[in-house]
């Protein structure tokens, strides 16, 4: 018996809740459903956003440096490695020097043709931009001379098979035959119409010297920081080239993503607000229910601050239990959702993404808001006069 009273106020709070256990459990269940919805909505919106970003920007350039269209002098980027000397590489996930050009592709019979983009690249930082490791659907990715990796758009439109030969034609009418050794699919319509070959072969085919490239492509760690990083690049070096970042060319996508983020925050805020109001009302009700007990405790010599602490603890216990149960519900619902809602390949529509820091911050903020609601509603305790409640009552 000795130790359980060390936190007497907590002990009283726990007993008050335990006494009407069924009612306390109903309260916890009700609040946890609100919390489950809050987290479910947040995770779904974050996940769809992350998947959308991955699909549209995951294998694309976030910042591009390329010659100006009208420039007759600086028509190619020379020695791109020099550019990296002035850059803070911590901002970047991937940097690729790319040599590229529009081509026509023909199947082996020469009957079917399609426009595509021929690309050869040099990875200056990290792995390839196009995520060949995870996006390869058939074949292999190690390209040798005379071989090509093609996007799914080309593969499908020309009705090709693995190891088929294709002809590619450049803008001056030269032809080149290559063997298809692999097919990749990123889900991005643009990228899926690329043909990837050895950098040297592409440079030769498109008339570039070994140190010359069409563009320098950057992927940043946080896509929403691309405009900031672009300004840093501009400040550091006086390029005679055009520099643009993805937001300038994708205003609709940006607006869509911003709207999604904003709506997620709004939804979460209002759910949390309603949960806090509920806790406020519940604790108010509990105080009214316990008026006599409060009067007795005051008469026995318990200070107002300590009695207030009892009710803060009550809201804290209700809050933590609700958050834990709410999280369990949220994950169960997510699990159900990803198992029930699938694409035509039978795979989940998108990967679930949980931003850990944000998630922890939200959990803590929930608990804090609930405890604050409890504190605000229990401030009236100091106004309760025990003489009115217990004597003559």
């Amino acid at each position, binding site marked *: 018996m000795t130790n359980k009273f*060390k936190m007497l106020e907590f002990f009283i709070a726990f007993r008050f809740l335990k006494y009407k256990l069924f009612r306390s459990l109903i309260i916890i269940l009700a609040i946890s459903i609100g919390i489950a919805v809050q987290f479910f909505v947040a995770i779904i919106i974050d996940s769809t956003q992350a998947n959308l970003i991955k699909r549209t920007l995951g294998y694309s350039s976030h910042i591009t440096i390329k010659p100006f269209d009208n420039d007759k002098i600086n028509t190619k980027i020379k020695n791109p490695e020099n550019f990296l000397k002035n850059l803070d590489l911590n901002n970047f996930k991937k940097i690729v020097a790319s040599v590229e050009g529009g081509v026509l592709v023909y199947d082996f019979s020469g009957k079917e043709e399609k426009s595509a983009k021929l690309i050869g690249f040099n990875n200056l930082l990290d792995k390839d931009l196009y995520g060949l490791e995870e996006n390869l659907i058939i074949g292999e990715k190690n390209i040798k001379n005379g071989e090509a990796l093609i996007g799914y758009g080309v593969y499908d439109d020309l009705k090709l098979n693995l190891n088929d030969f294709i002809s590619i034609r450049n803008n001056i009418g030269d032809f080149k035959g290559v063997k298809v050794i692999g097919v990749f699919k990123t889900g991005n319509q643009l990228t899926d119409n690329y043909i990837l070959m050895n950098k040297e072969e592409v440079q030769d085919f498109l008339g570039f010297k070994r140190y010359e490239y069409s563009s320098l492509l950057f992927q940043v760690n946080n896509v929403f920081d691309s405009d900031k990083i672009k300004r840093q690049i501009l400040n550091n070096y006086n390029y005679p080239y055009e520099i643009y970042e993805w937001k300038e060319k994708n205003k609709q996508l940006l607006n869509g993503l911003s709207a999604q983020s904003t709506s997620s925050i709004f939804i979460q805020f209002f759910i949390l607000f309603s949960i806090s109001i509920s806790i406020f009302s519940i604790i108010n009700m509990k105080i009214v229910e316990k008026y006599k007990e409060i009067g007795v405790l*005051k*008469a026995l*010599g318990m200070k107002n601050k*300590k009695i207030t602490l009892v009710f803060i603890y009550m809201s804290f216990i209700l809050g933590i239990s609700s958050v834990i149960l709410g999280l369990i519900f949220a994950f169960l619902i997510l699990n159900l959702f990803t198992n029930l809602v699938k694409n035509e390949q039978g795979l989940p529509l998108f990967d679930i993404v949980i931003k850990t820091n944000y998630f922890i911050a939200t959990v803590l903020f929930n608990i804090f808001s609930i405890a604050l609601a409890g504190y605000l509603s229990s401030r009236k305790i100091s106004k309760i006069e025990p*003489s009115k409640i*217990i004597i*003559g009552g």
Partner: protein
Amino acid sequence: MDKILIVKNVVKYYHDKVDTLALNNVSFDLEKGIVCSIYGQSGSGKTTLLNLLGGLDSFDSGEIIVDNQNISKLNDDELSFFRNQKIGFIFQFHYLISEFTILENILMPYLILNKKTNKEIINKAKELADIVNIEDVLEKYPDYISGGERQRAAICRALINDPSIILADEPTGNLDSKNTEIVMDLFLKINKIKKTTFIIVTHDEKIAYKSQKIIELKDGQIVSIRENK
């Protein structure tokens, strides 16, 4: 004999829409270790006076000195400490807390200050329970024992901190005649054993006449103070 209580010219108004005079220049004192009744009809001011003596309410003028402590000069926290250490309350309704066992209820005044128990205090609680004949129900909850047992548990709770004064407001008001007799006998027994001062508010003459001193109130004023030998 030592004075345990000195009340000097106490005036109390209830300040509502109209100011109502509840106590009008009340003065008396009490010796340590006696059983005193405050007797009067409903509305005479006896409960108001009890509230003031216990530091549960404030008054407009005068002085109340309990065990050498002037309670009109105490702030909220000091009054809480005063109530915990110097006063034991026994109410008409037992006001035990349903969520705690009888033993926990008895120990509550001690726990409020000390936040832990020890063998000594538990034995003391058990001794008190023994005196009032509720030693068998200590592990039970208030809802599962009789009204008489609950009131006796409340008496033990009032005594656990060895207070200077027990203030009892119509302690037998909710009890049948048998339990009334038991409770009054207990008061006298405890008074004899522990020399605790009792102030009992009652409208029942029979109960008042069991006390050594009777203070009669009418319309907020003392009409008589009688020694009952």
